[in-house]
Every structure is written in C-alpha cells, then in structure tokens.
C-alpha cells in the first residue's frame, strides 16, 4: 500500500487553509498582525451580506468587501503537496490576494459578474472607436 507523505501544518477548522507549523509561536509577529491576542485564521473571506462597491475611479475594480476568517486553528498533518497560504506579512496591500478574491466573487455572484461584464464590454467598444 502506498503511504501518503505528510507534513505538519496549522489548519483552519472553518476554511481549511493551511499555515506553517510556527503559526502559534510567531503570532503577532509573522502572522496575524493587528488581529488580536488569540491565534485565529488570517485568511481572507468575502462579505456577501454587504453590497459590492464600485470604485468611481476604476469601475472594473468592483468587489465585495473582504474580511478576515478568524476560524479556530489546530495542528494537523497534511499531504506534503498541500500549498501554504499567502501570508499577510508578505502581502500587506492585498496585491496578491485581492485579484484572487475578486475572481472567486465573480464566480459566486451573478450581479457582480453582470456588472464587470458590462464594464468590459464598454471598454472593448471604446477601444474599437479609438482604433
């Protein structure tokens, strides 16, 4: 029988995101800056209970607000090929995570998808006129 190789990780019980095993020791330093004293999941989630906002300067930047997951973390063995999450300390301005979240939101919300599609269609028309 093939044995699945595993590695140690700290896993969120709410969203299943895996973080490096030093999550508790480095809480407040490498992980979870500004998230309070107790180690919780620092992954991002979308707030679908709020309306999505359209940036007046860039209509294509419409998205639902982001929130922190705050799920309970536990030590767990995960398969060796499990990808670790993008850390907040490496992505303070959400440059890496915001486009991923917007893509997910677009797949989840028909209203957001319709808005972004209309913006893209209008942009294409403008390009043709300019050309």
């Amino acid at each position: 029988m093939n044995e699945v190789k595993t590695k140690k990780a700290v896993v969120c019980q709410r969203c299943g995101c895996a973080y490096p095993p030093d999550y508790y020791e480095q809480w407040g330093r490498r992980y979870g800056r500004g998230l309070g004293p107790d180690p919780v999941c620092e992954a991002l989630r979308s707030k679908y209970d709020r309306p999505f906002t359209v940036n007046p300067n860039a209509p294509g930047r419409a998205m639902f607000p982001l929130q922190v997951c705050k799920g309970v973390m536990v030590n767990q063995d995960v398969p060796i090929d499990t990808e670790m999450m993008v850390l907040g300390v490496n992505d303070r301005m959400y440059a890496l995570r915001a486009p991923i979240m917007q893509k997910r939101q677009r797949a989840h919300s028909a209203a957001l998808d319709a808005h972004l599609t209309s913006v893209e269609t209008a942009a294409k028309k403008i390009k043709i006129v300019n050309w």
Partner: protein
Amino acid sequence: MSKVGDQRLITVGAGLVLENALAGRRFERAPFLCKGALYATGSTVGLLAELNIGGRSVSPAINVNGENRLPIVPDDLLFADWVAQPNELIQVTISNPTIGDLDIAFKIELEEQEIVEG
C-alpha cells in the same frame, strides 16, 4: 451628565479616502461641550483612521485593528479623552490604501462636561 454616541459600519473602496465618516450624521458636530472617545475595527487589517476636531488634529492617520466585529469597549479604543467645544466639527477620516475593499465599524461616544466657575 448625558452621554450620546453613534455607531456605523461602512465599506471603503480600494484606494479611496472617506473624508468624514460622520458626514450627515446626528453627531457630526458636538452638541455640547464634551469629552469624546473613538473606537474602530476593520473587517481585516489595512485601514487607517484619522481624527480632527474643529480643525485641530487629534491624531495622524493610524492603523485600525482587523478584528472584524462591531467595536468592543474598551478593547477597540483608538483615541479617548479628546475635548470638543459646542458645535465643533468632529471629522473622522478613513482611508483604505489597499487593493481590496474593506469594511470599517466605528463607534463614537460623547460625554457632556460641566464648566465649573469660581
């Protein structure tokens, strides 16, 4: 002495600045001579808040925590014990320098003060 206040949850778009989060609200201006406190939490980290009273700076833009809840007293205190004269503008400026849209929940408490002469 009476204590009044306001609480709000607002979405701040990516790269935008909300000049005054209290604009158009009941306590945009201090109703009487009062001592105030401002509490704030963000839906995640990255937001900045700044407080000016009647054109006087109480603080520069400082980071708001990312506790993702309505403010708890006193855990989410930003500034306390600032004084506003009657009818002075209370300006809470929120800026979001990140690429993602974020929510901020803030609470303002105003406690009436007495002038003792003699």
